[in-house]
């Protein structure tokens, strides 16, 4: 059941992005930035975690979930440290992924050539 919910919600978020892409002049980069900001704002309002509770990875994996993870990290760190948490929190949850992206990106660049 959780796989079906992840499929439907994750698929729906991607389909909405595709509809925006096909009907506006916005570039994919603009849509991704818009989605991460929507995720951050809904995260700050406490709404996005309700979607995560329902859909699991269907809400976590789209880039809006990345925005939500930035905010959740900031909120955790504000609870722990006070105002400093606003500055240390962005990478509390996302840092693992960002560092992974850098290490694997560099590794792939060393190992493989781009095609064409």
């Amino acid at each position, binding site marked *: 059941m959780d796989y079906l919910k992840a499929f439907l919600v994750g698929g*729906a978020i991607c389909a909405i992005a*595709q509809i925006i892409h096909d009907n506006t002049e916005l570039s994919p980069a603009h849509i991704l930035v818009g989605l991460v900001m929507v995720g951050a704002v809904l995260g700050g*309002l406490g709404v996005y975690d309700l979607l995560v509770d329902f859909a699991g990875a269907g809400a976590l994996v789209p880039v809006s*979930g990345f925005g939500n993870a930035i905010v959740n990290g900031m909120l955790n760190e504000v609870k722990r440290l006070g105002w400093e948490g606003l500055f240390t929190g962005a990478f509390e949850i996302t840092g*693992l992924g960002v560092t992974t992206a850098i290490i*694997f990106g560099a590794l792939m660049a060393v190992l493989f050539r781009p095609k064409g």
Partner: protein
Amino acid sequence: MDKATHDLHDSYQQMVKVATPKPNYVKNIALAFLAGGGICVIGQLVYNLVDPVEPTSAETAAITLATMIALGALATGLGVYDWLAERVGMGAAVPITGFSNTVTAAAMEFKREGYLLGMGAKMFVIAGPVLVYGILSGFAITLLRAVFTGMLF
């Protein structure tokens, strides 16, 4: 052009208009839905493997994201991800694997300009805006929430 040819031309144009864009439009959405949903199912598989081991949901989320990022980088290195992205559009761009794809693809592409000023400088040429605006908007909303709920003062 006489009237008959003109009418034929018009009705042909009409047919083209009706026939071409709509199937692509529906197909694009369907492919984005299926591919994006499929990637999230892989994410759910990772999530379910990690969840029993990790003490907090934040750690489960972090490891799920990082694992998907690693898988996205591997698929990009092998050339699979770009093949997929050409076919499914936002279905490959929106999941966090797409974020990873832009980092790895930029690293591979700009390596030819050198490891320092090529790969090092331009790795986040596409992923950078997502980080910058995610953090700017996250900072603003978290500050507001912290002030209004009395977390700060």
